[in-house]
């Protein structure tokens, strides 16, 4: 895929070309937590591309799930210790109900080789980043161009 994209950048442009690098991490299982302070979601970490004068589009997509009454989960895209994007599940509000929300976290930054990772916390109860190899695979991707 990287080669195809690089070819597209190069075609008709006089042969200058562009540097393109994609880094991807897929989760093979679910992560649950009861923590009310942000904790790293295990293995949901990547090293962003390091491209001189380059830009990096980082995004994560996954299912956020909580089934405790009137609780929310908060998810963070962390870039070397700074929260650069935040997403939350809806408060379910029902008795014994649950909320299963698609979470997308996006950031455009410098392609600086920083560590990007996903963290989460719950307001109460148990929340998860739900991974199932059949129909929902959490992914964290960094797309660097320079």
């Amino acid at each position, binding site marked *: 895929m990287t080669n195809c994209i690089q070819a597209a950048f190069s075609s008709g442009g006089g042969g200058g070309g562009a540097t393109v690098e994609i880094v991807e991490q897929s989760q093979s*299982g679910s*992560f*649950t937590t*009861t923590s009310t302070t942000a904790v790293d979601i295990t293995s949901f970490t990547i090293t962003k591309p390091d491209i001189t004068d380059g830009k990096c589009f980082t995004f994560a997509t996954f299912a956020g799930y909580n089934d405790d009454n009137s609780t929310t989960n908060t998810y963070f895209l962390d870039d070397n210790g700074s929260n650069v994007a935040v997403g939350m599940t809806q408060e379910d509000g029902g008795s014994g109900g649950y909320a299963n929300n698609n979470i997308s976290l996006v950031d455009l930054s410098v392609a600086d080789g920083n560590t990007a990772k996903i963290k989460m916390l719950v307001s*109460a*109860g148990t929340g*998860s980043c739900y991974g199932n190899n059949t129909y929902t695979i959490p992914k964290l991707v960094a797309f660097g161009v320079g």
Partner: protein
Amino acid sequence: MKYNLIKNTSCDDPKLCSHNIMEKLESKLNCKLHADKKNDTVNGSISIYHTQPHQIIIEFYDKNEGSNNIHATKFNKLSKIPTESEIKKII
């Protein structure tokens, strides 16, 4: 105090799996690792990556801490924080 443990198991229902491990720890250690409500008092937390094997992170708070702009829960340090071997026996 934070413990990173490995448990050689697999599960089909991560939520139920988490609850089962948490309830064992809470009952045997007489502690609270989850908040039922946003302003509950808790002694720590449990996080699990439900792969084969499971990776389990159990945290016991090292100091008392009131609600703040980061968490509405109140943290309460246990008078005796369990050891890693005590936890391993339970889970």
